[in-house]
């Protein structure tokens, strides 16, 4: 029996790669910064000594360290962006369709209830938005063993608010949950919310935590099509 192909696999893999590249870039930049600061300190101390005056390679190599660190910084800033790896297909989309694709591709057992108006539309890349929504749905579905997930959407002025609600223990600190590789779930990498947030931001949107009496309520806001 063959497994059904995941229609969002490629976009998801690229989005995860982009997120991992961002983490590596951050860590490398910190290390290069420490080297540059240390070089600056040593240069100031050594530049008043006889060694500096008598050995021309000393000032030359301090200059080399500085130049190479700056060059390496520039290299790691040549960003690996999803947009560079795959041609995006921006179109006017029905939010109901995005939700439907995401819920259909979600790798979860949970019951998913959709209450989304058919006339709400956004502009974006269907597969990217579906990857973001799937990450949020899976996050909600894994909140506890028999989770129920509800998807809602509504227009608020010029924004479309897509809401993913679960009946789990709730989420008090979105900032903490958004930290790369943070997860409370065994066997997970902890990048789903980061991937979703990056895709939301690329579409001019954001992710926030909404008020709820029980469970978690994650809101993905996007500019709505008038």
């Amino acid at each position: 029996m063959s497994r059904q192909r995941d229609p969002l696999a490629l976009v998801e893999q690229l989005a995860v790669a982009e997120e991992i590249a961002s983490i590596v870039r951050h860590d490398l930049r910190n290390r290069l910064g420490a080297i540059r600061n240390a070089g600056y300190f040593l240069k100031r101390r050594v530049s008043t000594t006889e060694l500096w005056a008598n050995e021309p390679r000393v000032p030359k190599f301090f200059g080399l360290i500085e130049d190479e660190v700056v060059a390496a910084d520039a290299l790691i800033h040549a960003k690996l962006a999803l947009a560079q790896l795959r041609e995006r297909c921006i179109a006017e989309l029905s939010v109901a369709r995005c939700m439907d694709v995401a819920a259909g591709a979600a790798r979860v057992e949970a019951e998913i209830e959709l209450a989304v108006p058919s006339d709400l539309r956004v502009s974006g890349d269907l597969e990217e938005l579906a990857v973001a929504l799937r990450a949020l749905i899976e996050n909600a579905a894994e909140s506890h063993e028999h989770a129920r997930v509800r998807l809602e959407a509504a227009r608020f002025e010029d924004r479309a608010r897509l809401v993913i609600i679960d009946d789990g223990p709730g989420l008090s600190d979105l900032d903490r949950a958004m930290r790369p590789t943070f997860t409370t779930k065994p066997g997970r990498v902890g990048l789903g919310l980061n991937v979703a947030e990056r895709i939301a931001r690329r579409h001019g949107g954001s992710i926030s935590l909404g008020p709820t009496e029980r469970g978690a309520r994650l809101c993905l806001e996007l500019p709505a099509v008038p």
Partner: protein
Amino acid sequence: MSGSGDDRARVLVVDDERSVLDSIEAVLDEHANVRTTTHPMEALRLLEAGDRSFHVVCADYRMPMMNGVTLLQRVAQRPEYISCLLITGAEEYFRSDNKSGHYVLLKPFSPDRLVALVLQLARVAQMKRTVGELVGAQSGRHRTAKS
């Protein structure tokens, strides 16, 4: 504000990576009195306990337990004026939703730029405190004259 003696700028640097923290301290300590900590909560404790308060708090954005924006918001709520400097990469900054208006130094930065900015912010803090004291003293005199 000079670079020597009691008049030196007092700077608190907060970063969860010790190597980054040590290297920033080495860059700054020729010009200022520098304290460092890897824990935001320890930074708040130092501010609470200090009899001579810091002029500048520099904080990295991405730290466990509390991010730099939240830490600096807590610092800005203190009664004495303290200049707040967020040190962060552009990518984290744009994701940070920083609406608090702290000064920002984007990584990568040149050490000369860090020194110049921190000394300038220390002067701003000193000036604001002096103005605050003068205004306080004047309004106190005003109240006494009226009563």
